[in-house]
């Protein structure tokens, strides 16, 4: 075995494999850093080029790309509160507040260090656990995964802080969002509003970008705003070193969260999108005296250690049993097959050297990516001191293209993103916790699917007697009991409990107008009423689950509304607001949402390659009040990115606009139309 381990290591350092490894790291860094791109897209684009490569080079390229996206995705999460990929959603909860405090470099230092640590630990566990994987897989069936997902749902309590009812309604909202699309057991499409776009359910990326990114853009679009609201003692490299020290100081937390990442990765079907939430929730629950949600570095360390470690974990069942634990692992499995390798026992015998090549590539890529990013992101961290109005069009550009990539069709993706942007903005203004929505959306699919499979495959509920199910059930009881006890104690100590948004990525708003709060609760109630009305029209296998959730959500929502009416009657919560600040906020709101709506409406007419650059140009000229040259540079930059990167390299689908036909008639026959539309 040692011989194969050494052979595998030597193979990674041979030429051209080492060159492809570096190329994979570079591509992975870019695809992780830009919201919406993701490592999966990178792998899909690269895959055909690996067909003719030698095996070691092909895997050096693919694995390096796969490994490092969860390192570089931290950049967007910290800098602008927009998750770079689905695996870094929880990082924004403390990463972005750190940036607001001027500590972006520190957040980077901590995140990159633990990412490398988690990634290496994941790779080593991968190597050591290969022969032991079968028992884990054998005992993790649908009932066990269902119970674990329910346990994960209890994180709502942690992510809601004092606003437990609001958190519960938000989580139920998320669970209901997960029911959009096809039912598992019968041929029914639910709540698709007659559009094919929702046939696969609500895509996660536009929802997350809408809920988290757009409300922050409104804040940034105000005149004079910057991301950083403070100037800390340590910035630049000093800040980065301070973050590395934080990582070393919290090595035990990083180790525990990496272990969470590895085991979530191993279990097929749980996936990277929830691992950061689980690690974050675990850290928040177990660390006393934390300031999570307000820029606590441990809130960055926990998810970042976990999301890199999960890569090694998800490769374990793929290599040892041919069962990929994630979409990325599934693509790698396909690549193995095209190379004539046989995932399964052979990877532990005849092809053990290749298996070790994969392990070493994971180790090396994680370390190199962290070092590379520590040196390069230092400059990016300085952007937190740049006026926000200059950043907004650039961020909106990536948010729009990102949601498009995540949903595949521009108009549908933008409609979803803008709708959830408005919901996210309203939730933020009304102090409703937003993370439970995402938690519900991510876990909802798993919960319904695994519950259906458990009932159908076991012919009822006999699975409730499975040993692991009982164990997890006991864990759930203990968590609920301890939360109830804690709540009672805290209520006795401080009866008027706070109702703050735990995500300071959505920092507590300047005001929480009771009328707006009531309006939001009313809107939620209408939506739940629609579900209760619509669900019985589906067959029971498809309708019963959303109907049950809808009824529970409606009851909780009515409780909330009654409470809010009572508060309004008492005349409490009267908000004294600064009129000029409100005007500034309204104008920023209109600039962001109005601008997006215009781009969305005009794109089918003029095409995205015209409307988006024009929007960037006008925003800089009129909102940022900069000169025509700077505005033009923005517009041209946006156009060049769209044409040469999004169109020519990653081949994003562009809608054929109405002007296409007249242009074809007007322009010379050989004119490359893809320059314009």
């Amino acid at each position: 075995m040692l011989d194969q381990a050494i052979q595998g290591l030597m193979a990674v350092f041979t030429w051209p494999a080492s060159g492809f490894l570096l190329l994979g790291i570079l591509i992975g860094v870019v695809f992780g850093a830009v919201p919406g791109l993701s490592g999966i897209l990178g792998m899909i684009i690269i895959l055909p080029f690996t067909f003719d490569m030698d095996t070691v080079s092909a895997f050096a390229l693919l694995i390096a790309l796969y490994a490092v996206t969860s390192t570089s995705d931290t950049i967007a999460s910290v800098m602008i509160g927009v998750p770079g990929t689905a695996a870094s959603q929880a990082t924004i909860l403390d990463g972005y507040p750190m940036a607001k405090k001027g500590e972006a470099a520190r957040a980077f230092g901590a995140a990159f260090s633990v990412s490398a640590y988690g990634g290496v630990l994941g790779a080593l566990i991968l190597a050591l656990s290969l022969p032991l994987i079968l028992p884990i897989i054998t005992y993790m069936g649908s009932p066990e995964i269902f119970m674990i997902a329910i346990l994960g749902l209890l994180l709502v309590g942690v992510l809601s802080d004092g606003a437990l009812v609001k958190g519960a309604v938000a989580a139920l909202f998320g669970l209901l969002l997960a029911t959009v699309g096809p039912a598992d057991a019968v041929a029914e499409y639910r709540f698709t509003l007659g559009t094919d776009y929702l046939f696969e359910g609500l895509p996660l990326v536009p929802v997350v970008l809408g809920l988290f990114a757009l409300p922050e853009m409104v804040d940034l679009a105000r005149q004079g705003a910057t991301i950083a609201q403070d100037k800390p003692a340590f910035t630049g490299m000093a800040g980065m070193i301070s973050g590395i020290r934080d990582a070393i100081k919290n090595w035990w937390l990083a180790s525990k969260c990496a272990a969470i990442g590895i085991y979530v990765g191993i279990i097929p079907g749980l996936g990277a999108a929830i691992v950061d939430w689980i690690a974050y929730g675990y850290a928040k629950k177990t660390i006393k005296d934390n300031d999570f949600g307000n820029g606590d570095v441990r809130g960055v360390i926990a998810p970042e250690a976990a999301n890199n470690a999960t890569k090694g974990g998800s490769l374990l069942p793929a290599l040892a049993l041919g069962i990929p634990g994630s979409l990325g692992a599934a693509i790698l499995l396909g690549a193995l097959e095209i190379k004539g390798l046989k995932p399964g026992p052979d990877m532990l015998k005849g092809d053990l050297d290749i298996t070790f090549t994969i392990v070493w590539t994971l180790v090396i890529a994680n370390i190199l990516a962290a070092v590379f990013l520590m040196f390069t992101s230092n400059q990016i961290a300085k952007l937190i001191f740049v006026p926000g109005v200059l950043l907004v069009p650039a961020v909106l550009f990536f948010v729009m293209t990102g949601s498009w990539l995540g949903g595949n069709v521009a108009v549908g993706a933008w409609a979803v993103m803008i709708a959830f942007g408005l919901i996210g903005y309203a939730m933020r203004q009304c102090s409703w916790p937003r993370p439970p929505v995402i938690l519900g959306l991510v876990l909802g699919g798993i919960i319904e699917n695994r519950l259906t499979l458990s009932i159908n495959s076991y012919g009822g509920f006999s699975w409730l007697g499975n040993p692991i199910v009982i164990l997890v059930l006991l864990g759930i009881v203990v968590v609920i009991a301890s939360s109830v006890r804690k709540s009672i104690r805290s209520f006795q100590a401080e009866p008027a409990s706070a109702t703050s948004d735990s995500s300071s990525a959505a920092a507590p708003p300047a005001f929480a107008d009771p009328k707006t709060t009531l309006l939001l609760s009313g809107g939620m109630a209408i939506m739940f009423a629609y579900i209760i009305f619509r669900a019985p029209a589906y067959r029971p296998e498809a309708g019963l689950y959303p109907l049950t959730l809808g009824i529970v959500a409606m009851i909780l929502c009515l409780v909330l509304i009654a409470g809010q009416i009572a508060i309004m009657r008492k005349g409490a919560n009267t908000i004294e607001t600064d009129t000029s600040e409100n005007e500034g906020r309204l104008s920023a709101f209109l600039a962001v949402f109005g601008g997006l709506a215009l781009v969305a409406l005009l794109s089918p007419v003029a095409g995205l390659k015209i409307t988006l650059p024009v929007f960037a140009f006008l925003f800089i000229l009129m909102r940022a009040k900069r000169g025509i040259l700077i505005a033009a540079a923005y517009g041209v930059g946006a156009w060049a990115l769209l044409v040469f990167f999004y169109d020519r390299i990653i081949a994003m689908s562009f809608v054929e606009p109405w002007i296409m036909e007249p242009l074809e008639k007007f322009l010379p026959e050989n004119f490359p139309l893809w320059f314009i539309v």
Partner: protein
Amino acid sequence: MRITRLITISAASLAIFAAPTSFAKEFYAGKRIEVFLPVPAGGGLDRNARVFMKTFPNHIPGNPTIVIKNMPGGGGQRGINHVFAKGGNKGLRLVWGPMNFAGILAGLPGIRYKPEEFKPVGVFSTPFVTIARNDLVPGGMKSPEDIMKVKDVFVNGGRIPGGSLGTYGILSYNMLGLKYRHSIGYRNQPKLKAAIIQKEIQSLSTGNPGFWVFYANDLIKKGTARALFYHPLFDLRANKMTRHPDFYGKGVLAFEEFYAKVKGKPMAGPTAEVYKWWSAYQRWSMWVMAPPKTPAPALAILRAAYGKNVVDPAFLKRFKKGNRRAPDFLVGKDAELVSKGYKKISKTAQAELKKILNVGRK
């Protein structure tokens, strides 16, 4: 199989001959063809598409760029609907994937395309296989026929409602009269494999690439499971099933043969008719379809290129790595026999199909 090959090769030659060469040289030069896959990346269908499309442009005069786009949703319907409605009239968009003929006949919701209006470039397919755990029988199954000794209810896993693989399990077990429960919702083959390891399910059906990637080298080699029977294509011209003797292991028969062996009579009745219909039409799973308004000259070029690519040694070398055999295929007009003829099914069989697919509101 040989007959199918002969038909397809002659069709490919005809298509090549039919392509207008002067037009062909210039039409696709410097252009980009978008191929939509109605499935997520990573599965067997996606892999086969990428392998095919790697060499496909080499056979199109002008060597255009091929761009593959995954557009999953609705069991493949979203991507196919999209190309049908918005594929345009320039010959620059194609869809690669299964036409849901059965879904159309059974009234499955969400299908907005008409296969008969699509312009088939070509289609290929490989057989499907049904496997089961050996421990279904006390002491273990010694041969595929031992499945008939199973007395208790066992669980057959399926991916999605109305899916081709799961339906083969239902059709076979219904005809054999075995007691089973069909559990749908596993969504993909990796989850099905995990479930059969965990004994959550005891049987499943898989496509040819899935058989070799997930099962042959692992569960079957270890003796945990075995291939029971395979589901070949029904050759419409020869009016009989194709055969692949011992391809999935010694003694593994085509279902039709298996049925005759254990029941002592040939398959008959509405379920058998559905099975044959399924094998003749629905089983063609990897279609390359051009949208209805594709210009005829462009279609001729694409069909000619398809005919050449499907026998290109570079393509076959890669394809065989995952599939262990070359695909059965139809090009152009021959493929239209399937895409335009799928409604040839009796009312009784159609009712049976609808019942099996469990379609319809309460």
